[in-house]
């Protein structure tokens, strides 16, 4: 039987993996993929809570997850467009080499 704890543990693992990827990747698209993973762990959490927690409107969590998916898609669109623009100008999307601006 799957309980809330199982969902939360998987969510936490997914979040940690995403966090690690977002912090360790040097390629901007890689960082973005880590962030997407973190957002997916949020969805997992929300749906788990919606299923297991006593709530006045149990569907809230699921609706929230749908919106998070939508916003994540929009985010990817903006980020990839920016990555293309940066690549055209600099021939790199390595975040370590985007270092004109510091301190």
């Amino acid at each position, binding site marked *: 039987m799957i309980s809330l704890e199982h969902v939360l543990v998987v969510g936490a693992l997914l*979040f940690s993996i*995403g966090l690690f990827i*977002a912090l360790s990747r040097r390629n*901007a698209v890689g*960082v*973005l993929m880590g*962030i997407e993973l*973190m*957002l997916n*762990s*949020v969805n997992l*959490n*929300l749906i*788990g*809570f919606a299923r297991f*927690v*006593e*709530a*006045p*409107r149990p569907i*809230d*969590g699921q*609706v*929230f997850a749908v*919106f*998070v998916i939508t*916003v994540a898609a*929009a*985010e990817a669109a*903006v*980020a990839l467009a*920016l*990555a293309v*623009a*940066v690549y055209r*100008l*600099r021939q790199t*999307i390595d*975040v370590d080499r*985007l270092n*004109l*601006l*510091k*301190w």
Partner: protein
Amino acid sequence: MRPDLNLDYALLVPEYILGLLALAIIVIDLMMPKIRKDALPFITAGGLAVAFAVSLLYIDTDDNFAGLLSIDDYTTFFRCFFIAVTFVTVLASAQYVQTHLRHPGEYYSLLVISTVGAIYMAAAQELLTAYIALELLSFSLYVLVSYAKMERRSNEAGMKYMLLGAFASALLLYGISFIYGASGSTSYAEIAAAFEGGTEGFTFGTLIGLTLIVAGLGFKVAAVPFHMWTPDAYEGAPLPITAYLSATSKAAGFALLLRLFSGALMPVIDDWQFMLAAVSAITMALGNLIAIQQRNIKRLLAYSSIGQVGYMLMGITALSPEVSSALLLHMTGYVITNMAAFTAIIAYHNASGAEDVSDFRGASDRAPLLAAVLTVALFSLAGMPLFAGFLTKFILFQSVADNGYFWLAALGVVASLVSLYYYLTVIKEMYVSAPPDSFQQEGRFRIPLIMQGAVIVLTLGVFFVGLYPAPLFELTDSVAAVLFTS
């Protein structure tokens, strides 16, 4: 559809006007090549003026839209506030956009759309709505920051802002999911009801939720451990967008924080107060200290604005009706002052291309009006008497001290003293250093009338708040009271 939902679309008319305006600007830009592009900012400003006038009709309304957006005096206050800031930004952009940027249509329409996001952040009384509004504002800003497509720094700034912003959103959402799990609802009122027992029944999950929400929103308002994007975004962005970032994106973050913490998280105040007190103290100290060594005027103002965020976070820490009122007052004064400073810098930049503090040497000879305005604004930011900054800071610090955070207020006073140093270095360049040799041939800069008008009106605003604050004070008092009645 549930029958008890209030779906009164008439409550949202100002935002419809803004939405239509954003669309109309793109259509006009696209379909009517005959219209001269320099008319676009004035069309935008006209539309914003209409939206502002319509917003005023909602004074004293106390209603909500489907339990998602509350339309009360607090919302009306921020509607007018954000529309006015966008109005000034649009007028200040007119010349800059024409000379520096391409695609003016999208530029103005994104500005208007981001205003809608900011307004809904202040109006939201439910976490999902607040999140969507936050992203509406952020996405528009990501694009606007990197709007100078062919400029390396603008691109880089946009990329960094985007990645860190998305990262912060992910943290915020993970925190929200835990708050949802602990309270079973995303509505502020229901969260407050679920937490009614205070720290009783407080779980580890809620603590994670609170911490991550503070971290995520801290990113958005640029509080210190999460501030790294700010100087980069400020320096890389086109100048008018820097002004806009420092005003709307900050104020919207605080509007959201204030409603969220007073509406939903007030019962568990003991569990987040210490976090915000720590963040506020570090923000004040670091923001003002790092500002000392900045040589670029945009970066200098970026760190100065981080310092200001520290003062404002004090207001969230010692949350109470008086403190919220003082916070709103300080925010209004700060935004007017900052817009005055940035408008003067934009005008100076248009004429000279200046970006470094050293480029301002001899500004009192080359552009006496702008130098005077910038001096007034910087003194006000530092908190000198006579100007808005002194009075609003004084009231804020005093009310924070009265509410049990004397040490925080004392730290704020010390930080203000430090800030005077780096503001004075700019003023010294303008008044003491001799102008460069080219001054003899070029003479004074010619500043367009509209910019002169804008800086003069904003400077009068700074003096008005500083010398006769009673009307504004009564206004923020009644606005803050709305948050604490329900």
